[in-house]
């Protein structure tokens, strides 16, 4: 049975947007800690994050699959070959990228800004929120980069999701499958639609970060 294209498209968007949302929460939090706090082992953690940004998605997929495999340490969760398992893999793919960009964004703010906020009477939480607002454009860019990385990856989607029709097939795995079957026309259509989806979501984010679009409210 051939699954309607819109269902594959919706599943792709759901998996990658959910993964991006979770990865943004983790990545912005971690990037803030690494960018602002004087943590012991900060240099080591930064190196780990930078390495994570360069890890091939297929390697992430392999590691997640080994963990989620029915006989693996997290096998009881029953996440292998599920959408939730794919989300876990994409969270791991997007998080280092978002963490790294967040860290850089906060470090690029004027160095005396945290102290200035402190001297203006902001408590720790108020300072962090204000710094996020000041760095909102690069933080949005971080989320966009994370989403782009997640929706375009095929390695972990194939290994962790299994490309099961009607259950875990997403746009990228569908393209690979159709190319494998010699259905280049279908693969091209999927590719163009995937590009369109990425464009629409990025265009929405860009419209939010237009210069001056939000200064009055922030």
């Amino acid at each position, binding site marked *: 049975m051939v699954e309607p294209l819109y269902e594959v498209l919706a599943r792709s968007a759901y998996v990658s947007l959910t993964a991006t949302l979770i990865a943004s929460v983790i990545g912005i939090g971690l990037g803030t800690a690494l960018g602002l706090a004087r943590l012991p082992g900060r240099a080591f953690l930064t190196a780990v994050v930078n390495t994570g940004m360069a890890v091939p998605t297929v390697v992430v997929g392999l590691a997640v699959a080994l963990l989620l495999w029915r006989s693996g340490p997290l096998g009881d969760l029953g996440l292998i070959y599920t959408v939730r398992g794919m989300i876990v893999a994409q969270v791991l793919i997007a998080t280092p990228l978002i963490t790294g960009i967040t860290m850089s964004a906060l470090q690029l703010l*004027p160095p*005396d*800004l945290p*102290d*200035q906020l*402190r*001297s*203006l*009477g*902001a*408590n720790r939480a*108020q300072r962090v929120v*204000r710094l996020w*607002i*000041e760095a909102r454009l690069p933080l949005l860019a971080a989320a966009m980069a994370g989403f782009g990385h997640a929706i375009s990856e095929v390695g972990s989607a194939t290994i962790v999701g299994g490309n099961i029709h009607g259950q875990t097939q997403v746009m990228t795995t569908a393209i690979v499958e159709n190319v494998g079957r010699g259905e280049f026309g279908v693969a091209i259509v999927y590719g163009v639609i995937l590009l369109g989806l990425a464009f629409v979501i990025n265009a929405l984010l860009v419209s939010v970060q237009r210069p*001056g679009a939000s*200064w*009055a*409210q*922030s």
Partner: protein
Amino acid sequence: MGAELSLTGVRHVRGGREVLGVDSLVVGRGEHLSVLGPNGAGKTTLLRLLAGVESPHAGDVTVDGVSTARGGVELRRRVAYATQRPGLLSTSVRRNVELPLRWRKVPRPLRGELALAALERLSVAHLADRPASALSGGEQQRVSLARALAIDPAVLLLDEPAEGLDAQSRSAFFADLEQALADRATTVVQVSHRADEALRLADRVVILVDGRVRQVGSPDVLNRFPADARVAALVGYENLVDAYVELDGTVLIGGSQTGLTSDLSGPVVVAAFANGVRIVPADAPGLPVRVTRVTPGPGHRAVALEGSVSLLAQMPIYGSSLSVGDDVRVGFAPALTTVLPKASG
């Protein structure tokens, strides 16, 4: 109501070097204290310690007897610190001024009123709805100051508040600052490396050099009785020349009479403001010098003189007809000249 500030036995180290060492300094309630010193003297460090942004490595900094290291956010909220860069946030001018009020849980309607009143005091209320990033340097300085004043702080700390402004804007800025502070009992500590700004509004001035307090006194005392040549240079004495005091108190420069006397003896430094260097008649005691440069300035001419020492004089733009190459004798107006011990310079 202003607060009393106190530093006791304070030592602060940065990069392995002691950048500030203050044995004792008290700023009274409502006092305006200026801290004058060259770049790197520890002025900003002093303000950061008073603001509670940093804690000293040794000693205690207190606001009304409460240590800034232990006072927490509640103590910091009594202190407003306007940093050297205006550091406005990327939002509207109004929101910039309102944010510290919001952090102090001031009700929203009152926030708007207080913010607008503060902006009005600094003559920038018309900019309230503009993005802060669209302001000129002078406007940003005023908004930064309005933001500091809006919270009605017990202590106002100003770090080179007019840095980066042109002369005209500086003058207007300080006039507005003076007016904004006129009916307040706020304790103010202002740091500057410019004597004219430091002395302008101060009740007392601290001279800070290499992290150490060199002299404390009223602007008049510092002007008239600088402790040493370094202080004299900071206060604005343009001429600092080696001299010698004979046993009878006569001050000689390069063996020539100066017309000055002193209670000191032996090698000294004569500090003279440029407008205290006067042309004297040929038969009066004075230094023989040659005019090497005449530079027009606002309302005066700056005249460079070379003899046994180099001097800078200021002559009225009308009434003096000195030209390069003229040989003249100069003396010193005692009220604009002081004789300082050489060893401490």
